C-alpha cells in the first residue's frame, strides 16, 4: 500500500493526519458495508422498497418493450387491473376466503396437537421414545404425495384440503416444538426444584412458559408451509380457492390472473407473518426482537 498521507490506512512516517479523533473517519457507505453494522431505519425501508421497485421495473421493461409476449407476461398495470377486476367482479374474495378458511382450520388443528405433543416430546424421554421415530419418518413423506390418497378417502371438499395441510404442518411442527422444549436450559428446571417446586410445578410454571416464545416463532414459520400445501392441494383438485382460480386461468392462458393469484398469496403471507410478529412482540416483551 502506498504511503499516501490522505489515505486513512496510512501509518507510515510522514505528517500526522489532520486532527480527526482517535479513529480515522470512515465514509457512511464504508460503515454500512461493514458486516453486521446497524443501518438507519429509513435507509432500511428505502432499500426494501427499492428491491420491490427493481423487480417491478424489470417486469415492466420486459413486458412493455414486447421482449416477452403479453400472454406469457402481462404488464404490471394489466395485472393490477385484473387483480382489481377479480375482486370487484369475479367473486375472487370467495376463493380467497375459501383458502383462508382451509388454512386456518388445518393449521389450527395441526398446531393444537403439535404444540402440546412437541412440548411433551422435548420434556419427557418416554414420550420422545414413543413418538419421535414415527414423526421423524412421516416428516420426510411429502404432504403432496398424500393428496391422491386423501382424495379417495375424503373427496375434494374442504376435508381433504384440511387433511393435506394437517399432514404438511403437524409432523415438522411437532419436531420443531420438541426442539424448543428440549432446549429449555436444565438450570431453569433445577433452580425451580431447589426452590421447592414439584415436578408438576416445574412443568407448568417453568418449562411451558419458557417454551412460549419459541412456540409462537415456529408457528409463524409453519403457517408459511400451510399456504404451500394448500395451494398444491387446490391445484390438484378443487372447485374453489386461490389455487383453483390459478389452475383455471392457466387452462385459458390468462397469465394476468395467474400472476394476480400468486401476488394475492404473497400479500396474505405477509399479513399472517405480520400478525405473528405482532403477537410475539405483544406477548413476550421480555425477549429480544426476533427476525428472519
Amino acid at each position: 500500500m502506498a504511503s499516501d498521507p490522505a489515505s486513512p490506512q496510512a501509518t507510515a512516517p510522514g505528517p500526522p493526519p489532520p486532527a480527526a479523533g482517535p479513529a480515522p473517519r470512515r465514509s457512511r457507505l464504508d460503515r454500512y458495508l461493514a458486516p453486521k453494522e446497524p443501518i438507519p431505519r429509513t435507509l432500511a425501508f428505502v432499500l426494501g422498497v427499492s428491491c420491490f421497485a427493481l423487480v417491478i421495473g424489470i417486469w415492466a421493461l420486459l413486458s412493455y418493450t414486447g421482449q416477452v409476449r403479453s400472454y406469457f407476461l402481462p404488464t404490471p398495470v394489466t395485472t393490477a387491473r385484473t387483480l382489481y377486476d377479480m375482486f370487484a367482479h369475479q367473486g375472487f374474495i370467495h376463493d380467497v376466503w375459501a383458502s383462508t378458511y382451509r388454512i386456518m382450520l388445518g393449521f389450527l388443528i395441526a398446531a393444537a396437537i403439535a404444540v402440546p405433543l412437541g412440548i411433551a416430546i422435548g420434556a419427557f424421554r418416554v414420550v420422545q421414545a414413543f413418538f419421535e421415530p414415527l414423526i421423524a419418518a412421516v416428516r420426510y413423506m411429502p404432504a403432496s404425495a398424500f393428496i391422491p390418497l386423501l382424495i379417495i378417502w375424503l373427496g375434494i371438499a374442504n376435508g381433504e384440503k384440511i387433511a393435506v395441510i394437517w399432514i404438511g404442518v403437524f409432523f415438522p411442527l411437532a419436531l420443531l416444538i420438541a426442539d424448543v422444549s428440549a432446549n429449555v436450559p436444565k438450570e431453569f428446571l433445577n433452580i425451580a426444584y431447589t426452590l421447592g417446586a414439584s415436578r408438576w410445578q416445574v412443568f407448568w410454571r417453568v418449562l411451558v412458559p419458557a417454551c412460549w416464545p419459541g412456540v409462537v416463532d415456529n408457528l409463524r414459520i409453519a403457517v408459511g408451509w400451510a399456504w404451500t400445501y394448500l395451494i398444491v392441494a387446490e391445484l390438484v383438485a378443487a372447485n374453489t380457492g386461490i389455487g383453483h382460480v390459478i389452475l383455471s386461468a392457466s387452462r385459458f392462458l390468462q397469465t394476468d390472473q395467474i400472476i394476480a393469484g400468486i401476488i394475492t398469496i404473497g400479500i396474505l403471507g405477509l399479513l399472517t407473518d405480520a400478525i405473528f410478529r405482532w403477537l410475539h412482540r405483544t406477548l413476550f416483551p421480555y425477549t429480544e426482537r426476533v427476525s428472519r
Partner: protein
Amino acid sequence: MSAIAAHDVSMVFPTRRGEVRAIDHVSMEIPDASFACIVGASGCGKSTLLNIMAGLVEPTSGSVTVDGSPIRGAGADRGMVFQSYTLYPWLKVRENIEFGLALKGASKRERRRVSDSLLGEMGLREFERAYPRELSGGMQQRAAIARALANDPKVLLMDEPFGALDALTRASAQRFLTEVWEQHRRTIAFVTHDIEEAIFLGDTVFVMSPRPGRIREVIAVELPRPRTLDDLGSPAFADLKRRILSLILESDGAAAA
C-alpha cells in the same frame, strides 16, 4: 452440628471408555452458618458434588445430610445459585424473587414483605419491574441470590456464581456476598476455581483433586473478618494462596503422570 454434610459420596459415570469416577469417597462437613469454599481444577468433580448436595444428582453411593437427616432429592431447604444467568426471563425481577414463595402458595402480602426487604438489600429496588435481560450480569446474580434467600433456605449452594462476571463486577459481588452472609448467617457451600475468591470468602477451603475427584485437604482460613482489599496483599493471604495452588498443581501433575 454440621448444617450440611456429605458421607462417603461417590459418583461414577459410565462412558464409552469405561467408567469414570467423578467423585471418589468424599466426606465433608460444613458447620452451621459457616462459609465453605470448594476449589479445584476444572473436571475435579466440584460442581457434581454441589449438585449432589442440592439433591439434583443422585450419587452412586453415599449420602448427604442436612442437620443430620438425609436428603431426599432437591428441596427448598437448599437454595442454589448457578454461574449462568438463570433468572426466568418471562418474570420481572420482583416476580423472580417471589417465585419460591409463590410455589409454596404464600399470600401476596407475605411475598411482598419478603421481596421488598430483599430488593432493598440487594440494591434492586429501582429494577423490581425490569425483566432480567434489562439487568447487568452483576445485578442478575444479585437477583438470583435474592431469589434463593427469599425461600429462607438452611443452606445456600453456589456454583461459580461470579464466574461469568468481569473482574471489577466480580470483586464488588464478592464483597456484597460477604455482607449478605454476615447479615443472614446462612451456611454457604461455594464452588469456584478462583483460589483468591475462595480465600477471600471462605471460613474453610476444601481443595479437591481431579480424576478421581477427592478432597485433597481442608484448609481453615483464619483471616479476621470483615476482610478487605488490604487482606489480599497480606502475607497470610499469600501463604494460603501458595499452599492451595501447590496442592492443586501437585494433584494435577499426579493425575497426568
